[in-house]
Every structure is written in C-alpha cells, then in structure tokens.
C-alpha cells in the first residue's frame, strides 16, 4: 500500500460574476492520480497557475476537492472521523514557501517548534526543551536561537525553523510547497541538502512542489509535470524527462539556463 494515494481528483474554482449566468468555472485540477511510496520523494513541477498549490492544499486536507479521493495511510482524509484525522495530521506535515507568514510573529523559536509537541505529546518542560534543542541543532541552528523571535532570523534560518517544526513529530510525509523557492541559491542548496539528510535519517517521504527544475531533480525520485491542471506525465529519472518530446516539457527544458554563459543563447 502506498503512503499517499491521489485518486482521480478534480477541482475547479468558481469565479462568481455579478450576473449569475456569467459565472465561470476555472478548472484547477482535472483527473489527477498518483501515489507516493514510503521513503520516496515525488516532485511536482509546473508553471505558475498549473494547479500545483491547489493540489498541495487538497492533499493537506484544507481544500476539499469536488471529485476524487485522497488516501493517506489507507484512510480517506476527507471522510475520516475527527480522531483519525487528528492522527493522520500528525504524520502529514507541511513547510510553506513564505516562512514569515507561516509562524506567529509573537512567539519565540522555542514556542514555535514546541507547539506540535505540546499538541500531540505529553512531555515535561525539560524534555520538551531538550527535544527542541536537538531539533534546532539538526537543522544547523543552535541553542542560542531558542529565545529569538521570527523577525530576528533570516529567511533561510526561519525556513529551517519551519522544517524543524515539521519534523518534530517524526511524520511520514512532508509537503514542501515551494519551500526553497524564496531563498537565495546558496541557502537553497543548503536546505536541499538538509532535506535529503532528514529523508535518510527518518525515512521521510516528500511531496516537493516547485517550479524550479534543478531543485526538483536534486531531491526527487519521481517527477510529475503539471500543466493547466493536468498531470501530463510522471518521469522516474532525469534522462526520461530530458528525452521527452512533450511540448510542455520541451518548453520547460528551454527555460533552463546553461551553467556557463557561453552556452546560453537568447535567440534560438
């Protein structure tokens, strides 16, 4: 059984107009099916508006799809009872793109990271602090950062705090929704390395949603390409992706800049 199974998910946004007959249905996801195995990372690649974030929301259980099913550990997350859902949420954590809006600006790093622990586990104050410190160290921050507030961290550091919070409960799957897209290249590769290490250590699975082809390939085992709400193809390797003749993939390949400017061409 797969860890996560997405079964024929359809969703469209209704954009209401002033006159009812002019209402428009914008198809965000059409007939999407795929699955994530335990310990694997699935990348979802797509341009803006391809439906990546909608799919992320659907999988996280905050956007009920109009049709289709999300099975996580064999449970349908939208039709599970409250207790099961609470249990599933524990194993399904998330790191969002905007690290600042994902945390309460009035909480210290310690309280941010310990919030899931408080919620799910009965730990003493000392145990909790020890766990938080070890989590901070795991994401290359230190005990000194315990009492700092979000505005005292850089974007990359704060994203690491978000990651520490996400792994605090040792979940099975983490949804990374553009998690490394708003940091600089160096920070990005550091965070990607961190994520790869965590995946090894905890046997995590990732759903890595991104528009960045290089980032997607550096971490994913399988890559799906989304375009206009449709999942065009799943590619199991880099070679498969680059040898694909699909027009959308061709376009994506063209947009990658060569490593060296000599090989870049503007008019081709």
């Amino acid at each position, binding site marked *: 059984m797969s860890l996560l199974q997405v079964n024929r998910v359809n969703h469209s946004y209704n954009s209401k107009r002033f006159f009812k007959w002019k209402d428009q249905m914008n198809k965000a996801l059409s007939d999407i099916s795929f699955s994530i195995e335990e310990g694997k990372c699935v990348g979802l690649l797509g341009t803006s508006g391809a439906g990546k974030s909608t799919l992320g929301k659907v999988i996280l259980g*905050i956007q009920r799809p109009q049709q289709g099913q999300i099975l996580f550990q064999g449970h349908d997350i939208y039709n599970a009872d409250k207790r099961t859902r609470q249990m599933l949420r524990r194993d399904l954590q*998330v790191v969002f793109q905007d690290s600042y809006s994902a945390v309460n600006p009035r909480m210290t790093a310690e309280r941010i990271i310990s919030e899931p622990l408080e919620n799910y586990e009965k730990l003493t104050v000392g145990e909790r602090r020890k766990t938080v410190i070890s989590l901070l160290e795991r994401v290359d921050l230190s005990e000194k950062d315990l009492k700092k507030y979000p505005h005292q961290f850089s974007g990359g550091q704060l994203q690491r705090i978000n990651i520490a919070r996400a792994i605090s409960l040792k979940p099975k799957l983490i949804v990374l929704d553009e998690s490394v897209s708003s940091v600089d290249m160096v920070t990005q590769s550091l965070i990607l390395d961190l994520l790869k290490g965590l995946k090894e250590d905890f046997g995590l699975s990732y759903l890595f949603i991104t528009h960045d082809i290089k980032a997607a390939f550096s971490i994913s085992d399988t890559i799906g390409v989304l375009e206009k709400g449709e999942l065009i193809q799943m590619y199991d390797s880099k070679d498969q992706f680059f040898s694909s003749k699909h027009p959308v993939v061709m376009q994506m390949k063209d947009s990658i800049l060569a490593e060296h400017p000599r090989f870049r061409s503007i008019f081709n």
Partner: protein
Amino acid sequence: MGTYILKRILAIIPIFLLVTLLTFGMINLSPVDPAEAYLVASHIQPTDELLAQKRQEFGLDQPLLTQYVNTIVSISQFDFGKSYITNKPVWEEVSSRMPATIQLTFGSLLIAIVVSIPLGFLAGIKKNSAIDHFSRILSFIGASIPSFWLGYLFIFFFSVKLDLFPVEGIGTWKHLVLPSLTLALPLIALYTRLLRASVLENLQEPYILFARTRGIQEKAIMGKHVLKIAISPMITGLGMNLGKLMTGTIIVEAVFSWPGFGRYFIEAIFNRDVPVIQCYVLLAAAIFIFSNLIIDLLQMYIDPRISRKGRQHQ
C-alpha cells in the same frame, strides 16, 4: 526596560510645565475676573475696594510672570493652594473625593472587560451567528443611549420598580452597580466591536490556517494565536478610556449623587476657582500619562516586536 520606564516618567516634567503654562494662560485670557467671580459666588456686592482687596489676597495684583512662578513653585512642593471659594486646601478636597471616583472607574472598567472580552471574541469566531447579532444590537444600543438617560432608566427599573439596588449615594457594592453599569455600557459597545474586528482580522492570518493544517487543536489556536493578539487594540482603547473615566464621570456622578471629584471640578470651572482648575488639569495630565505608560508596557509584554523597536531607538 528600567531605563525606558525612567525616561517615560522623566518626560512628565516638561509635559507638566507646558500644561500649567497653558492653563494659566487660558485662565488669564478669560474675561472673568476670579476676584469678581468669588464675590458674586459669595453673594457680596462687588465694589472697587473689595475687588482690590480680594485681588491682593489671591495674589492677582502681581505681574503675570511672578504669579506663574509662584504657582509652579508651590505645585512642585505638592501645594495646590486654597480654593478661592471654600478657602480649604485644594488637595485635601480632591483626595477626599478620589476614592469614590477610583471606585467608579474601576467598577465600570471591570464590568466592561468581563462582558466585552467573551462577547467580542465569540462574535468574532462565530460570525453572523445569533451571538454576533446580539452583540451588534447591544453595541448599537450602548453607543447610542446617552448616559444621563440610561442612568435614570436604571434607577427607575432596578431601584424604584424592582428595588434591587439603592437609588443613589455610596456605601456597599450595591451602590456601585448601577453607576458602573451606566458608565460601562458605552465601553462594552466599543470594546466588543474592537475585539470582534481584530479577531476576524487575525483569523485571516496564514499561520492560523497553517496551524490548523498541522493538526493543532482549535482550542490552542484560539487561545494562543487569536485571542492573545486580538486583544491588543482593546488594551489601547482601555488606556485611553481610563483617563476619560477618571476625569469625565460628571454626568453619572450627578445622576447617582456619587461623591466623586467630577462635580467639584465642574463647580470650580463655573466659579473661576483657579487653584482647583489648575489642580484638575494637572491631575488629568498625570492620569493620562500614567495610564498610557501602563498600556505601553502591557503592549510590549504582549507583542515583543514593540519593545525591540523601542530599544533600537535608544
């Protein structure tokens, strides 16, 4: 933190100087002569001779600058002088009336807080529910009814008809209920709306949605994230109203014959009783400054970002 508080307290001195200068100037600009006002108030026919005598007695014959300096010097020694009208020391009169006013202020604030926090919070998280509509109607009524009318309504129903509370005066907690309630209702109206609006605003924050996504229980989200932050505009409002309540309860005092200092000061204004007016203005300034200081400290405690900014400026 300590230096910050000290700085704020030291800042009171220039404010006080300015306040005394302004009141002194305005009293002297007014066409009414305090000596004449005194004689009229004591039902004595003012003659030139009597006026001159009284002016000398009050020190009004001296140059303005001398008068002002004398006032400052005596105030700095905590001597507000004697009332022109009653000839009693001003501070004695004020401090004997202060407990009643403080009682009334804190009684009404307590009622306002106890009612508006749960009401505003529930109205916010259950938008457009029965409780939201109820709070809206209550706020509408509370904001529109003038307090003198409300006071008499309360007296009519609760004292005369139902005989639950005494009609007027001060003494037991029962005496306090009606006047506090009268003062509290407009505050409840204001705070409930303030709190509801900021709860709604906070619920829109992305980290609230994300907390739900991560499976944090609703109770924890509401308590730790929403309420604690939403309450901050209300605290600001509270600070502003504390000063207003302490200095402006005159109507309610009159309705319930409450022996606070509101009426004492109003009479002083009618009689041009300069020392009393001077004392009132300074007291009001002090109350506003201190309540603002307390509120700022509270805000710092709730939102650590504020104190950061404060420290950076130092």
